[in-house]
């Protein structure tokens, strides 16, 4: 008889909390991934996966990139690639760099403060 997956309200609540937390820093992560230069959508996904533990559903990143572009934080350009088909590259605008810096500073202060608080709580 197949074993049903164990799911308790506590586990579901914990999963939701983690998902919300990850969603909250997604925009910052996308901006940060472009800090060193222009990338196209798939590259951004790979950088996020390689350099952080953020693994996104592939359909998630494109609407975010589109929104950041319409907000003037990113600019995009179609470039004919060696792969034989064009790619849409994104890069930070001056406002995007400013926003990324602000977010990173806020995040650093926030996580440092919270780290002190939760230090005794974490498992050794």
């Amino acid at each position: 008889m197949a074993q049903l997956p164990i799911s308790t309200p506590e586990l579901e609540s914990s999963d939701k909390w983690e998902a919300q937390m990850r969603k909250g820093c997604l925009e910052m992560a996308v901006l940060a991934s472009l800090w060193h230069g222009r990338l196209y959508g798939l590259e951004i996904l790979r950088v996020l996966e390689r350099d952080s533990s953020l693994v996104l559903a592939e359909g998630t990143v494109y609407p975010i990139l589109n929104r950041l572009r319409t907000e003037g934080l990113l600019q995009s350009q179609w470039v004919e690639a060696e792969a034989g088909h064009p790619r849409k590259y994104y890069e930070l605008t001056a406002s995007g760099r400013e926003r990324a810096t602000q977010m990173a500073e806020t995040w650093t202060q926030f996580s440092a403060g919270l780290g002190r608080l939760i230090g005794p709580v974490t498992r050794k």
Partner: protein
Amino acid sequence: MTPQAQIADYLARLRASLVGMTVSEREDIVEEIRMHIRERASDPQSSLDEVLEGLGAPELLAEQYRTGMLVQKARTSRSPFLILRAALRWATTGIEGFLVFMIAVVGYATGGAFLLLALLKPFFPQYTGFWVGPGQFSFSFRMGATMTNPQPPVHEVLGWWLIPVCLLVGSLSLALTTKLLQFLFRRFRWKVPFASVMRTRPAMMAL
């Protein structure tokens, strides 16, 4: 269904769901997704089904684009209709959005009601006014066979001044509601959520 037909079908559904955008915006999005599918599907380790599954249903993908653009437009728009639509979209995502939507509804309903009073005054001057008196202090509009004006000592005080007063108060209410909502959209920009679902996997697998 051949792979080409499968891709064409996915993109056609995506295009059909990207309503409320210019042709240029829509085609730009479709083209980007087409290139993503093409590049991902060329990877021998992944199948087309996996690639399309990773993108999610085209209708849901389009929904994320539309939400993002709607909220972005609402931040700078002065159109109550557009702002209400964005607030309604936000309202479906949690208590915070619901409160913003309620502010929008109350603010615009109040503004609209005052403007309506100004509009009705020329047509129903006897039944539209600002009556004050013992136990009564309210704007009101009355019409119909069974309704009568309040009797003295309750009396109407504004007369034709009701029109400019209501126009002013109504316009102010609409403008302030719009400004407040634009502020909320900007202030809570990081919190305006998307209908996206993020997969997570253990860090060791992401390396």
